[in-house]
């Protein structure tokens, strides 16, 4: 049976252009606003502290309509990145899309700009037993398809490479992100 949902990453200037369905390891955190599978703009290993990637903005997309509704959309990780890599996540305000830029590497205000914000928005806080709430209410109902418009805010994420990372150059092992929702 065909998939009834997928996840799309947005790039480019506002309102952003949705990618095709992202699969497996095709989401690349880097110092660029794309997911091209290359080594051109990596997040370098710092001599101390942490280097941040540019942000990613994602949404769930429902190409086929539910019989009833999609509600209570949540987000969580399982496993997580390797030691020395931090992963940050938050829900962006409804309808707001901010294009990734070089300014993100300095820390995003309210998100990753301070140690306190980094700790608060560490994706490790969002396991399956305590997921990040993306939309507590209705995302979309029959007969609608798509992302639910302003009913679904973006999930913004960012990678941080710490000086303690020992994995060497190249992409890290892909880890799993999940969306959870109630469906009728």
């Amino acid at each position, binding site marked *: 049976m065909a998939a009834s949902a997928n996840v799309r990453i947005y790039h480019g200037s506002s309102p952003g252009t949705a990618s095709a369905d992202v699969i497996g390891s095709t989401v690349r955190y880097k110092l660029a606003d794309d997911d091209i599978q290359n080594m051109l703009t990596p997040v370098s290993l710092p001599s101390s502290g942490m280097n941040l990637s540019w942000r990613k903005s994602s949404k769930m997309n429902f190409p086929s309509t539910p019989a009833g509704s999609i509600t209570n959309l949540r987000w969580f990780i399982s496993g997580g990145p390797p030691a020395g890599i931090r992963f940050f996540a938050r829900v962006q305000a409804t309808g707001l899309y901010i294009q990734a830029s070089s300014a993100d590497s300095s820390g995003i205000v309210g998100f990753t700009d301070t140690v306190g914000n980094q700790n608060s928005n560490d994706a490790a806080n969002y396991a399956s037993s305590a997921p990040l709430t993306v939309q507590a209410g209705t995302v979309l109902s029959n007969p609608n398809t798509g992302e639910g418009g302003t009913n679904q805010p973006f999930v913004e994420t960012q990678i941080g490479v710490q000086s303690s990372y020992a994995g060497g150059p190249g992409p890290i092992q892909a880890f799993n992100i999940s969306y959870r*929702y109630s469906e*009728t």
Partner: protein
Amino acid sequence: MGSWYQTPEGILLLNSTNRGQLIYLWEARYDNGTISRMYEDFIFERALVDPKFVPNPELRATVDHLDRDHVSEIRLYPIKLVEKLNPLHQLRICPVNLKLGERFVCYWLTDFSVKFKTHLRRTIVGIERISPNPENKFDLLVISPSGKTKFCHNDNMSFEGE
């Protein structure tokens, strides 16, 4: 997902049931004796006896259309294919005896893995009530495709391997 989901039975069950959506067919019984079903009768009954038949998910009725104030019982019938693959899935009869401020809920809790591009749908039946205590707002029976069940007050749980 744990080891059962990687067995041939687990893989076949998930792939055959729209990732857990069609494991059970629901039937709602009203207090006046009438019945409302997930599918038209001929589809519903064939699914219960023919191990090679799985209903089209796009033809299903949603529980959202039920007259919740007058439902006295929800029945979950495993389709014949599932019954043969996993005997843990049996007919489940869930009485609905609601008190003031309560309503019954019935939905799929769907986990979508971005890495593996897979859904996993768990069937949930229970009660939602008006309560200032979030721990008392829900009484939920969660049934995973593996056949494992949990009773919980919150569907934000870890179901790893279950």
